[in-house]
């Protein structure tokens, strides 16, 4: 140990970083951007959940308390909080509304809902859930049950409700929730819900870095200069990279899919071939993003700095942790700029809803569009070094 040498080394390291302005800025600004994003995301109150209500309850009219419609009371209670926005529906429209995402769940009050309650001292709530997000399903079930409990409790004040509520046996709730699922079901756990997104994210992340470094080395070792002095055009080079690295992306995608499906035993519906296609497209987009990003980096160290700038926002905004519909309105356009968002949607539609090419093709078409745009941009960015 020699303290002078250590200090000289430290000084040299400091000088190197100081000479690399971009690194300096990123070290300070990068974490702030991410923290800021996280603060926004965690502080955003989840948007109100659209809840469908089919109220066919005829209620009951008694000489003492007037007309009582229990279904209406529960619906009013649900509407009172910020948790739900209610959408009145017909019975026939339940599944189609769930399918097109206009509601997340539907509560159905049959004609004899109030009558039944008075007879059995039990309110049986029929809830139909969209079901692809188990966490959300649970939250909706819990909220609906609580709202029903509160409205039944308020009945206690009326002559009508007094006896049944107070006489209800200890430990037995006067509310039972009978849930059915459009997609998924109780056997789908949280991992099943996030798996499609993770698969897509990982498929993109590694090839992005690989492409970034490979392309950067082409420049740093001088072979790009040599390549530029051959008849090879910029587009030739980008496409060549895309196919070459794309092959490894496909191998990786196959390995990821195999592992999640057969080893981690993720529940999935839909076709495996279609899943492969979606991730493969995203991986190819990752390669082209890497080539484009490498144009902005001079060293491999700077490539690492792209992780916070390119990868994290995709992870945070692309629907990996927060549903895009819950993002603040001014952040949502960013999500639409990210290939990951479209891949996520397609993956979830296939894995959780069992949809086919006929339903998910718009997302795939957008991914292909992204790839084409990235190829053009990468080729244009190379202009600086390849005349």
């Amino acid at each position, binding site marked *: 140990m020699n303290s002078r040498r250590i200090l000289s080394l430290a000084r040299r390291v400091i000088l190197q970083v100081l000479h690399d302005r971009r690194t300096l800025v990123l070290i300070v600004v990068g974490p702030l951007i991410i923290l800021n994003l996280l603060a926004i995301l965690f502080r955003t109150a989840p948007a109100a959940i659209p809840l469908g209500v089919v109220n066919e309850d005829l209620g009951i009219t008694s000489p003492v308390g007037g007309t009582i419609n229990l279904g209406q009371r529960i619906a009013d209670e649900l509407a009172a909080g910020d948790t739900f926005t209610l959408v009145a529906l017909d019975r026939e429209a339940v599944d189609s509304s769930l399918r097109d995402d206009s509601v997340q769940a539907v509560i159905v009050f049959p004609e004899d809902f109030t009558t039944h309650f008075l007879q059995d001292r039990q309110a049986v709530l029929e809830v139909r859930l969209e079901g692809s997000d188990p966490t959300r399903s649970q939250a909706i079930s819990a909220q609906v049950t609580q709202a029903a409990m509160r409205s039944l409790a308020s009945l206690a004040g009326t002559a009508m409700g007094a006896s049944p509520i107070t006489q209800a046996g200890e430990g037995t709730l006067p509310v039972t929730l009978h849930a059915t699922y459009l997609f998924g079901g109780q056997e789908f756990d949280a991992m099943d819900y996030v798996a499609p997104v993770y698969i897509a994210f990982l498929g993109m992340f590694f090839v992005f870095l690989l492409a970034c470094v490979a392309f950067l080395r082409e420049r740093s070792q*001088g*072979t790009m200069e*040599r390549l530029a002095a*051959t*008849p090879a055009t910029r587009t030739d080079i980008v496409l060549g990279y895309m196919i070459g690295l794309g092959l490894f992306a496909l191998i990786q995608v196959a390995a990821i899919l195999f592992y999640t499906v057969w080893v981690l035993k993720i529940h999935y519906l839909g076709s495996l071939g279609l899943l492969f296609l979606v991730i493969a497209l995203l991986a190819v987009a990752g390669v082209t993003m890497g080539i484009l990003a490498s144009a902005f980096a001079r060293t491999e160290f700077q490539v690492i700095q792209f992780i916070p700038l390119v990868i994290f926002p995709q992870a945070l905004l692309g629907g990996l942790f927060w549903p895009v519909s819950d993002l603040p309105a001014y952040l949502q356009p960013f999500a639409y700029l990210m290939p990951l968002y479209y891949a996520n949607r397609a993956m979830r539609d296939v894995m959780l809803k069992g949809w086919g090419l006929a339903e998910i093709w718009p997302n795939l078409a957008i991914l292909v569009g992204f790839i084409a745009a990235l190829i053009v941009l990468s080729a244009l960015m190379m202009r600086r070094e390849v*005349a």
Partner: protein
Amino acid sequence: MTSDDVVQTNELHKRFGPIHAVDGVTLSVRRGEIYGLLGPNGSGKTTLIRLLLGLLRPTSGSIRLLGEDMPNKAILGQVGYMTQTSALYEELSVRENVAFFAEMCGRKDRVWMDEVIELVELQDRSRSPVRTLSGGLRQRTSLACTLAHRPRLLLLDEPTVGVDPQLRATFWSYFRRLADSGVTLIVSSHVMDEAERCDRLGFMRQGKLLAEGTAAEIRRQKGAGTLEEAFLQFAAAGLEGDSR
């Protein structure tokens, strides 16, 4: 220009901000000629070569290579370019590197590739990854890559840097054989004994082509005994010109 002119530039200028890297170079190189581009470091040799290849856009002036106006991507298939540092794919073997650059120019000829690899005396190492080679061996691989597609015009940027004297002699006798077979070579260098082997020389300083001619002509012009003295005198004269 005559039909024999393989390289032809007219009043070529290249500015990088305030720096005038190439300053009004008019040059013509005939078919089968070895043209030596001499000059100190930073005199604009590399910039000139990169301009010729179309790797840089000239600020003004025109360039014709092999009868075609530059930039022209297609014509580059007949041009061989050896960069100053041996730009090679580290993971690939010598042979794979040579094959790749041949394919990029649209010509892959196994017999010729063997011949090129033998020329640079790398037949024993042709399967070795470039990563494992010493500096001199890399330089040889780099030359092999430059020749892989049988170019008609060679632009060699200091090809003999890091090459031992014996191999340097081999390189030069090969350059001469190529020239005799009709290939045109532009070779940049700052080694004077190499200059003697060129058919014609151009002396560059601060982006200007200060003097041109055969080695004998250049010596005679300044009444100098050696090329080195002649160039020192040209350089000094150039300096006076600058200060005026």
